[in-house]
């Protein structure tokens, strides 16, 4: 019975969505896609297929690492601004303002070209274990993207921490929880629930910033498409495919986050 009702529900929703004009629009879109597939040049695909997969993998990897590290950094930044004394709150505030007030491209270039050209002056840096890493481009890209994510998300976490009702924290203390335990069990989870919808948007924005690392010679999917454009003198095909790849990744991200959000109790506060 319940199963049948569910099926009827789905059918009703589809028929509501699939109105006549939409069918026409979908047919037009299909026609555009098919004409693109037949009239444009795609013979370069097999040659660059593997390179593209490595590029996608590298983009996703950079996205995951910078989001996780950036979020870990954003929690203390938000906490310092929401509950810290002046000496903690002010530097966190300045950090967030500076990161949010300057373009990511400039931050990236400042780190890679700027810091990268200062480091070799110091012999102790050149002799340290970090030197092999500091000579490559990707640590600078990861650092810049992490700091950027932390700056934006730190501001979000400040609002989220400040938005948790005081009564919740007082109740936790009244139960005899230590400060750390109350933070771990009550304050942080509720703040994360509150920040989650914005977190989806921030992650998508972060995905959209990853192609910038191609400007400092990290070979992600954007750099691969630039290489295809240079090698084959094609303008549109690699870019269109690139846009399609990014849209697919965005779609998957949004879907995954909506599943996570659905698991979280929506009665907050």
């Amino acid at each position, binding site marked *: 019975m319940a199963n049948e009702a569910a099926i009827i529900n789905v059918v009703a929703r589809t028929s509501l969505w699939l109105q006549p004009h939409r069918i026409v629009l979908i047919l037009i879109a299909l026609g555009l896609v098919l004409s693109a597939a037949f009239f444009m040049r795609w013979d370069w695909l097999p040659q660059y297929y593997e390179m593209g997969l490595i590029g996608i993998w590298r983009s996703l990897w950079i996205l995951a690492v910078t989001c996780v590290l950036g979020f870990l950094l954003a929690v203390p930044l938000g906490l310092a601004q929401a509950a810290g004394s002046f000496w903690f709150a002010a530097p966190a505030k300045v950090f967030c303002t500076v990161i949010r007030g300057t373009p990511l491209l400039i931050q990236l*270039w400042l780190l890679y070209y700027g810091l990268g050209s200062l480091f070799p002056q110091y012999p102790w840096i050149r002799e340290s274990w970090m030197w092999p890493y500091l000579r490559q481009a990707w640590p600078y890209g990861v650092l810049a993207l992490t700091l950027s994510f932390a700056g934006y998300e730190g501001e979000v976490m400040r609002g989220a921490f400040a938005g948790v009702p005081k009564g919740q924290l007082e109740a936790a203390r009244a139960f005899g929880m230590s400060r750390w335990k109350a933070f771990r069990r009550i304050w942080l989870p509720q703040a994360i629930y509150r920040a989650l919808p914005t977190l989806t948007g921030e992650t998508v924005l972060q995905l959209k910033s990853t192609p910038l690392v191609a400007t400092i010679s990290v070979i992600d999917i954007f750099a691969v498409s630039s290489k295809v454009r240079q090698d084959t003198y094609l303008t549109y095909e690699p*870019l269109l495919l690139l846009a399609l790849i990014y849209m697919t990744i965005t779609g998957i991200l949004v879907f995954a986050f909506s599943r996570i959000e659905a698991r979280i109790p929506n009665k907050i506060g």
Partner: protein
Amino acid sequence: MASTPCPTCPIFPRHVCRRRSRRRLASTSGATLIDALLSASAAGITELLSPYPPGWGGTLLVGLLHSIEIALGATCLGLLIGTGGAYGKLYGGPVVRDLLAVYTTIVRAVPELVLILLLYYAGTDLINQALTAMGYQRVDVSGLAAGIAVLGFVQGAYSTEVIRGAILAIPQGQIEAARAYGMSPGLMLRRITLPSMLPFAIPGLANLWLIATKDTALLAVVGFYELALATRQAAGVTKAYFTFFFAAGVLYLLLSLFSNLVIGRVETWSRRGMPSLKEAR
């Protein structure tokens, strides 16, 4: 920048140049170099950043001016597209609504860098094809116009959503009252919808303006002359990478902070006669 091939990394001449400078620096001993830098730094930096020709400050300021021009133009174009888009999404027919939904979804899901490249090539191509089809000569689209058009198209998608939300937040009674007074749709837009939408839209639009000022830096990748590209030129010629990128960062930050000040003023102005935010809560 030197672009002679280097055995370690043949693809990226930029990289070569940096590694070379490292090698050159490495040859002198560290202590003397730091001494030299310290003595040179204070005088050297002011000289590098001075606004008159031996210094590169003037180049940076011209770049900043171009950035501001592009951001202003793009925001205005975005507002126009956004207002039209919001009206289309709210009051348009089913086809218009679906097309607008496709527009906003695609623009918000694809990185700005990719969109800028695509729209720049596609836009100039289309214009030139149309011109040759009508029997005119091909033209070179100016960097400023192309930058404004491309960024404006991107901004339009975001401002469509902001303005749509703001129009929905207007109390329904105000619009009904305007209809009851017999106002035409144009008059109602000018006298009722736009002014009463503003306080709801301004935080979002202010955010978009800040994003626009920062997105102008992306145009450097396509080769438009603005602050980021000017900085890169100056840094490439003088090899003072840190100084110049830092200076550019400061300029962008000042622009953001100044915008924040103005935005605060505009927000209080647009909320005049309404309860303040603190009281409303």
